[in-house]
């Protein structure tokens, strides 16, 4: 069973609808309140990155089912400027916008699986999965 949906990120308020959608889905999947907060926060970070750096992109939600576990897969992709140094953005405290620099490494810690693909000038795709415990 695969349920797929998406939210486009163009304005700051789209971030709110993106994470509300994620929270709804997480609730339906049976995540606890702490994990719901983690997922919503992770989506918030990813959506904000799209809004801040790429200006236009979208977040996809997918329910994934394996033999003995279920989870939510969040994919954030954009056609923005891309990331120059993939190693550095995963360092805590590195930010090009004067923020805290905890966004991407934070998402990695909030979720179970994390994957970052980016090419300068072509865009960025972040995939993150959280399994229901």
């Amino acid at each position, binding site marked *: 069973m695969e349920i797929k949906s998406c939210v486009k990120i163009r304005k*700051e*308020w789209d*971030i*709110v609808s993106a*994470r509300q959608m994620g929270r709804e889905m997480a609730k339906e999947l049976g995540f606890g*309140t*702490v994990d*719901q*907060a*983690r997922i*919503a*926060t992770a989506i*918030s*970070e990813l959506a*904000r990155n799209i809004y801040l750096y790429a200006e236009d992109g979208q977040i996809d939600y997918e329910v994934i089912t394996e033999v003995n576990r279920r989870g939510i897969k969040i994919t954030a992709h954009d056609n923005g400027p891309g990331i120059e140094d993939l190693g550095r953005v995963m360092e*805590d405290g590195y930010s090009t916008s004067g*923020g*805290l*620099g*905890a*966004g991407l*490494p*934070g998402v990695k*810690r*909030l979720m179970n699986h994390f994957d970052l693909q980016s090419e300068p000038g072509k865009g960025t795709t972040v995939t993150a999965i959280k399994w229901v415990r």
Partner: protein
Amino acid sequence: MPEVLRRIVLEHSDEVAAKWLKEIAEKRKGDYTSSISTELYESTNREFVNNIFASIDHPDEIAKLDAFAERIINLGWPLSYITDGLQSFRRVTIDFILTESSSVETVEFSKILTVVDDWVEPIIKQLVNQYSGNWEHTVSLQRLALQELSAPLIPVMENITIMPLIGTIDTERAKQIMENLLEGVMKHNSEVVLMDITGVPVVDTMVAHHIIQAAEAVRLIGATCILVGIRPEIAQTIVNLGIDLSNFPTKSSLRKGFQSALEITNREIVNLDNSTNDMTDILDSLK
């Protein structure tokens, strides 16, 4: 509008209207408007078509159309009622004129199209404008209402102030929080400010960053900012994100925060029960 076409349209206005009403009624099946009572729907349609015909002779008389649009908006009918209605009206009218007129030459045909367009387009434009104006008005009112709610500052007692935050914090609001906070600290001469985030659904790095900046600014003007209302799940996400909040005090609830605020300002809450007990003791001993 050329006299010939005008005559055709006006003389047969009943037929055109009847055709249009039929088409609209056909469209309505399984539509958004199906919950509206048939009576109301039909009378509105008739009013609509009368307004359209009236605009042939008085294209500048917009008051009637405005009133009609206002009524539709108040009824809560969708904009597509008006746009769909006028599109099919255009189609019906062109069809009718073509069947009535004898010559169907290309030049004539395109002339008819232009004439009908010139007639219907301004009506569409006017009604759509009125609709969007109405929406913009609603949105701006709501924005204003939201702004009023966004960063209230409550002086609870001398030197202690509380700022309860409820709902999502975006960049605009973060700015207001900072401004109101600093202004309020100066105005109320506060020593301690309690920032309550019980009602903030998600604390991500941006929100945390703004909170940290606001607390730092409060510290610079000589007051203490205590962050209260950190729910357990928010505490865990903050730790996961790796946000360092060790530089300023935090408490789980407003109550605990208020207690430490009292400690900072060298005060405490005294239970009056004890003193009344003492009084009764004294009175008892006097007996």
